C-alpha cells in the first residue's frame, strides 16, 4: 500500500498545476520542493503567456501576483549603432490579455499555496535525491535515508532535471538542447517605468532583442520586461556558439546587453536587485524523450517544454498545460487502479493532441533559424544598411525600396537568389 497516490517533484508551475488538478479530484498528493519557500530556486524568462491556469484556478487573473499585463511587444535587432524594431502596442490587449510579467518567488508561492488549499501535502526545503524503483517501475522517491512511496511520481523538477537524469529517464542535455539564460532585476519607480516605456496603469512592456552587435561569433538574444516597480533584463546565450568562440565569458554578454546605448537608457537610474541564471530548453521536437512510463510522468521544463521562434519566448504556459494533463492522467489511472506504462500513455496522447506538442511539431527545426547567421548577423546588417540609405538625403536620385534592400544585401556579399532561398527557409520555419 503506497503512502500517496501521487508524489510531485518540484513546486514550479508544472508541479503545482499537477498537484492542484489531482488534489481537486480527491487524490492523496505530496508536493515536494527543494527550495524554501517555493520559487527561490527559480528564474522566469519573464512572461506568462496564455490562459492555461483558468482550468485549475478560474480567478487567477484577479488573485495571482501578476506584475503587469503585456500591452506593448517589441522585437528588435540591435547592431552596434542601431536598433531596428517591430514595436506593436494595442489597446486590444487591455481587454483581451495575452501575457503577464511575473516574478517566480511570488508566482510559485501563490501556486503552491493553491495546491495546499486544494488538499495536497506540500513540503519545502526537501531535496529528492532519486527515485525508488523496482523492475523499471517507479514506486516513490528517496530523500537521503527516507523513502516515500506512491502509485506514481510526476517529475516537474525544471530545466536541470537531476532526478530524471539519474534514473535514466532523460538524457543529460547537450549544447544544442539548452541555452544559458542570465537575468538582472532592476529597481525603478513605477512612475519612471510608465513614463519611460510609454505605459499607463498596470500595462507593461515586453521586448526581445537579437544581439547582433556581439563580437566574433557569439550569438545571444536579449529580453526586457517591465514589472510593477522593477525591470527584468536578461540574455539567452547559445552554449554551442560560446564553446566555439572559446574566449567570451557568459556573464560579460549580460553586461554587454545592458551597456548597449539603447538599452542602458531604458534602465538608467535602476539599482540592480538581483542577478540570476537558469537553463532554457531550445531543442525541438526531435530531442524530446518519452515522457511517461511505469509509475511516472515528466512535465514542464524537465520534459523540455519551452519554445522560442524569435518573437516570443514561452515556457510557463507549457509547464502549466503539461502539469494539468499529467494530473488528469493520474486521476484516470487512480480510477482504474492502474499506473502502468500502458495506463499513463494517456498522458502522451493528451500531449500529442495539445498545443504544447503541436507547436513543437509546427516549429520543428526553429532553433536552426533562431540561432542562424541569417538572423544574428545578415538580416540586421541588411536592415540597418537599407534604413541608412532610405533616410539619408544625399542629393542623388532615389531608388525603389526593394532595390535598396537588394543592394544592401549585395553589399553584405549575399546574392539575390541566396537571399530568397534563405528568406524562404526562415519564413517556412517561423
Amino acid at each position, binding site marked *: 500500500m503506497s503512502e500517496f497516490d501521487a508524489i510531485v517533484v518540484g513546486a514550479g508551475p508544472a508541479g503545482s498545476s499537477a498537484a492542484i488538478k489531482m488534489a481537486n479530484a480527491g487524490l492523496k498528493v505530496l508536493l515536494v520542493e527543494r527550495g524554501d519557500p517555493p520559487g527561490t530556486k527559480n528564474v522566469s524568462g519573464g512572461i506568462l503567456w496564455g490562459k492555461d491556469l483558468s482550468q485549475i484556478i478560474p480567478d487567477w487573473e484577479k488573485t495571482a501576483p501578476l506584475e503587469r499585463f503585456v500591452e506593448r511587444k517589441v522585437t528588435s535587432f540591435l547592431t552596434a549603432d542601431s536598433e531596428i524594431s517591430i514595436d506593436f502596442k494595442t489597446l486590444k490587449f487591455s481587454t483581451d490579455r495575452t501575457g503577464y510579467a511575473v516574478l517566480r*518567488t511570488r508566482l*510559485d508561492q501563490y501556486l503552491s499555496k493553491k495546491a495546499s488549499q486544494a488538499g495536497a501535502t506540500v513540503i519545502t526545503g526537501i*531535496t529528492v535525491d532519486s527515485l525508488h524503483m523496482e523492475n523499471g517501475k517507479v514506486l516513490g522517491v528517496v530523500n537521503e535515508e527516507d523513502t516515500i512511496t506512491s502509485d506514481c511520481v510526476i517529475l516537474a523538477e525544471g530545466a536541470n532535471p537531476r532526478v530524471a537524469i539519474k534514473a535514466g529517464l532523460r538524457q543529460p542535455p547537450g549544447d544544442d538542447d539548452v541555452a544559458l539564460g542570465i537575468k538582472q532585476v532592476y529597481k525603478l519607480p513605477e512612475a519612471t517605468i510608465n513614463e519611460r516605456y510609454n505605459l499607463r496603469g498596470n500595462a507593461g512592456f515586453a521586448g526581445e532583442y537579437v544581439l547582433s552587435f556581439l563580437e566574433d561569433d557569439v550569438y545571444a538574444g536579449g529580453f526586457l520586461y517591465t514589472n510593477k516597480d522593477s525591470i527584468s533584463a536578461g540574455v539567452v546565450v547559445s552554449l554551442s556558439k560560446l*564553446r566555439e568562440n572559446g574566449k567570451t565569458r557568459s556573464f560579460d554578454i549580460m553586461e554587454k546587453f545592458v551597456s548597449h546605448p539603447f538599452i542602458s537608457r531604458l534602465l538608467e537610474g535602476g539599482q540592480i536587485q538581483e542577478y*540570476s541564471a537558469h537553463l532554457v530548453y531550445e531543442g525541438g521536437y526531435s530531442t524530446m524523450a518519452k515522457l511517461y512510463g511505469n509509475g511516472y510522468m515528466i512535465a514542464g521544463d524537465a520534459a523540455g517544454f519551452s519554445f522560442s521562434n524569435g518573437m516570443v519566448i514561452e515556457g510557463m504556459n507549457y509547464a502549466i498545460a503539461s502539469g494539468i494533463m499529467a494530473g488528469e492522467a493520474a486521476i484516470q489511472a487512480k480510477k482504474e487502479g492502474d499506473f502502468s506504462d500502458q495506463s499513463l500513455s494517456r498522458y502522451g496522447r493528451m500531449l500529442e493532441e495539445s498545443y504544447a506538442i503541436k507547436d513543437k511539431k509546427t516549429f520543428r527545426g526553429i532553433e536552426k533559424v533562431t540561432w542562424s547567421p541569417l538572423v544574428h548577423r545578415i538580416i540586421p546588417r541588411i536592415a540597418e544598411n537599407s534604413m541608412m540609405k532610405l533616410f539619408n538625403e544625399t542629393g542623388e536620385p532615389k531608388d525603389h525600396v526593394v532595390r535598396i534592400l537588394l543592394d544592401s544585401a549585395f553589399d553584405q556579399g549575399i546574392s539575390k537568389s541566396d537571399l530568397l532561398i534563405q528568406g524562404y527557409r526562415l519564413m517556412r520555419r517561423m
Partner: protein
Amino acid sequence: MEIEEKLALLNYKTDNQYAHITVNPKICETCPDHFCTFACPASCYKIIDGKLNFKYEDCVECGTCDIACSHGSVTWTNPKGGQGIKYKFG
C-alpha cells in the same frame, strides 16, 4: 558592474558540510579548453596560477557547468534541502 559585485547581492544558505558539485583535479589539469571558466555565469570556475580553482559557494544551481565540461570532470547534484541559492525575485 563586476560579476563579484552582482554575486554579492545574492542570498545563500551555504552548506559547509557538503559540496553539491565536485570536480576531478586530475582531469582539469590536462584540460585543453577550460570552457567551464567561460560558461559558468557565477564565475565559480577560475584559473589561478595556471590551475583550475572551483568554489561551489557562489553557485546559482543552473547546471551549465555539467553541460560545459565535455571531459567528465564535473559531478553535479542538487544541494541538500533548503541549502544553496535563495532568490528574492526569481
